[in-house]
């Protein structure tokens, strides 16, 4: 019992542990998907904003005044013109819009070689230090817009990352790149859109991470982590599990300016895992608590129910032991029966052969005795009776032989067309010819020819047995009614006799071997007739059954198959 309890506890514990682990993994996956979807959302915002900025820049670089300044030898008018043309972009704009997402912070023109054209001075084009301005320059002017990130000082100790979109200006006259316009915007990663709670965004540029939401040391550590990851792993993007301020975080990085001539920059998003861990811990405790509770509950319940259930189970065990014994006995009996049956079959086969000869010898001896003249009449009667008995014995042996052959499956009929009507008539003739035949009225109703599929000698036995029974079990002065008719594919022969009805309890046994009706203890017979007749009827493809047995009539019905017309010999039909 104790082992059982321990085993159940162990299995339950293991199952719950696995379930808890599975659940924890699901929670983690769910959270990661959440991170990914937030990243996707951020990316979506970036894409929309980039598209907006690109459109703004494209409109600007098509301005005829800017083209005129560049193409009509009026560079001195370039920045003054741009001041007008970029007024909308550079103004703080709609206070309702996300703060400064589309607001330009500075702009510079690049000449046809990609070098920066410095503005004449003043704050109109946005303040940039000389080295910062130099970083805007490109090696040549590609046709596609370039996305870059620029680190610039905005105060004494303050630095800020700026997103730079450089759009090439294509001459409407020559269709060649004549200049480019580079505009600085506040990056969406750094507050261009509001970040969700707990998630910190930043930009990795030139080996350093810039994230206003993180302390300087953390920025330095994470910057190095990203640098290391980029040196070994996928340069397009990836994720790292890291520790920030002693708590586990997940860091996602993704290049935000692929195919750009500007230095590579990576958008970095840091998700705290503290929530996840807390949730997992809580989940684990809940799982363990629930499992312990369930286990103890289960054990208590099992104790209770096992006591309730054990008694009937024990009873059941006793019963089943008895059943087992009974079954064994029954099987043994069956085995015996089977053996007996086999023996009986063998016996019938052997005995009938072995007995036939002695019976013949016996009858010959008895008949020899009868021929002696000095026999007293009572002795003669005795011997006559004995001779009669030998006939009976021979008949039994004959029947047994036939039955044993049927049982052994060695009796096969050569079916041909047999005129049943003839057989009936012959049988009735024999009946009348018997020496001690009682006076019986015979009623017949059958056509002159009625062909069945059978083998004459065996078909005759059926008819004879039925007629003999009808005679034997009749009452004195009784009646026999024989009818035969074709019905569909069958021929039905009914033989009925008057006399005492067969009791219902006995009816089911009348076809058994060696059964003799209780009504006929004084009637000669050996109880094989009906059994043999039925076996033979079945061998004919038909059957034999008792139709009724009441005060008026006891009636048997034999069913035969109608002979196939081709197999009917011409002589039989006549």
């Amino acid at each position, binding site marked *: 019992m104790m082992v059982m309890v321990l085993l159940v506890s162990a299995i339950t514990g293991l199952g719950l542990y696995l379930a808890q682990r599975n659940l924890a993994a699901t929670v983690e996956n769910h959270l990661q998907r959440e991170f990914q979807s937030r990243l996707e959302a951020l990316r979506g915002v970036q894409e929309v904003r980039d598209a907006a900025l690109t459109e703004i820049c494209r409109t600007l670089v098509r301005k005829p*005044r800017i083209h005129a300044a560049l193409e009509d030898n009026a560079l001195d008018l370039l920045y003054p013109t741009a001041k007008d043309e970029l007024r909308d972009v550079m103004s703080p704009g709609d206070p309702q819009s996300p703060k400064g997402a589309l607001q330009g912070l500075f702009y510079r023109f690049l000449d046809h070689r990609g070098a920066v054209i410095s503005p004449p001075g003043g704050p109109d084009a946005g303040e940039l230090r000389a080295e910062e301005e130099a970083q805007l320059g490109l090696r040549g002017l590609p046709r596609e817009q370039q996305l870059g990130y620029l680190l610039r000082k905005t105060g004494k100790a303050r630095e800020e990352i700026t997103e730079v979109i450089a759009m090439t200006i294509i001459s409407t006259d*020559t269709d060649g790149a004549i200049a480019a316009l580079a505009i600085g915007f506040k990056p969406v990663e750094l507050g261009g859109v509001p970040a969700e709670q707990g998630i910190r965004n930043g930009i990795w540029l030139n080996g350093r991470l810039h994230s206003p939401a993180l302390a300087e040391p953390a920025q330095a550590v994470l910057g190095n982590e990203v640098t290391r990851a980029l040196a070994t792993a996928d340069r397009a993007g990836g994720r790292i599990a890291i520790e920030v301020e002693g708590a586990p975080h997940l860091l996602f990085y993704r290049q935000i300016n692929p195919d750009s001539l500007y230095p590579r920059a990576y958008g970095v998003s840091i998700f705290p895992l503290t929530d996840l861990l807390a949730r997992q811990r809580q989940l684990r405790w809940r799982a363990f608590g629930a499992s312990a509770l369930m286990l103890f509950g289960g054990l208590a319940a099992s104790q209770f129910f096992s006591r309730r259930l054990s008694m009937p189970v024990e009873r059941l065990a006793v019963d089943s032991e008895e059943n087992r014994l009974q079954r064994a006995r029954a099987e043994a009996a069956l085995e015996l029966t089977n053996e007996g049956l086999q023996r009986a079959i063998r016996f019938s086969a052997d005995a009938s052969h072995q007995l036939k000869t002695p019976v013949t010898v016996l009858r010959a001896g008895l008949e020899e005795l009868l021929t002696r003249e000095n026999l007293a009449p009572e002795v003669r009667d005795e011997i006559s009776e004995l001779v009669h008995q030998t006939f009976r014995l021979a008949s039994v042996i004959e029947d047994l032989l036939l039955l044993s052959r049927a049982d052994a499956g060695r009796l096969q009929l050569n079916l041909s067309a047999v005129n049943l009507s003839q057989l009936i008539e012959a049988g009735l003739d024999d009946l009348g010819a018997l020496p001690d035949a009682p006076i019986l009225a015979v009623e017949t109703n059958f056509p002159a020819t009625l062909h069945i599929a059978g083998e004459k000698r065996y078909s005759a036995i059926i008819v004879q047995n039925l007629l003999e029974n009808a005679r034997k079990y009749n009452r004195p002065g009784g009646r026999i009614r024989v009818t035969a008719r074709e019905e569909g594919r069958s021929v039905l022969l009914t033989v009925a006799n008057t006399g005492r009805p067969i009791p219902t309890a006995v009816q089911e046994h009348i076809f058994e071997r060696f059964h003799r009706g209780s009504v006929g203890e004084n009637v000669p017979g050996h109880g094989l007739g009906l059994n043999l007749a039925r076996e033979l009827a079945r061998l004919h493809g038909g059957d034999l059954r008792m139709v009724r047995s009441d005060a008026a009539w006891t009636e048997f019905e034999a069913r035969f198959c109608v002979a196939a017309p081709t197999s009917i010999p011409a002589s039989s039909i006549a």
Partner: protein
Amino acid sequence: MAAKLLFPMKFRHPLTFLLLAAALAEHAGAQAVIEGRVELPKTHSAPVMIKRYEIVTKGGALAPNPPVAVVYLEGLFPQTSSLPVQQILQTNFAFVPALLAVQVGAKVEFPNLDNTFHNIFSFSPSKRFDLGRYRPDEKPVPSQVFDKPGLVTLRCDIHEHMRGLILVLDTPHFVISDTDGQFSLTNLPPGHYTLKAWISSKTTLEVPVELRTNTTLHVNIP
């Protein structure tokens, strides 16, 4: 405006117009004539059905298409007292004529015949101006006086494809050739001059000429 009323049909043919203008401006008693042909760059563009120029760029140089040349005589000439007011129309979103040659000090009006705003401006060093946006019914018709020689590129701030050229010349003797390059300058004073042929914003050909009274000089450039 008088010219427009007097020559409403010829107004659209700058060559004729300029010849007339040159003849009107000429002093009585000038005798010399230069005739000739300027070898113009080949063009593969389709024939211009309405016989007017448009300004195209080839190799960064602005030139009229089909090509024509502005042939002018450079030298010291007495100041012209009064110059005719000329016009460049904005019609069907194009400058007509696309190329105009004027003498320094000439006033050019820019009527807007389109049913929309135009905004003509020039950042060219010889003349920077910006007429701002105006409608067809703008009165008075916006105009500019071109007081420095040089090439002025006209643009429209609203329709970036529009281009026009005004060649401001410090001479009263100039003519625009036909599209075969044929030209004829009449009523020229005798003397030594330089005959120039402006072909594009980057190409101006020149040959020295000596003009004599009552003679016709045949010059092929180059």
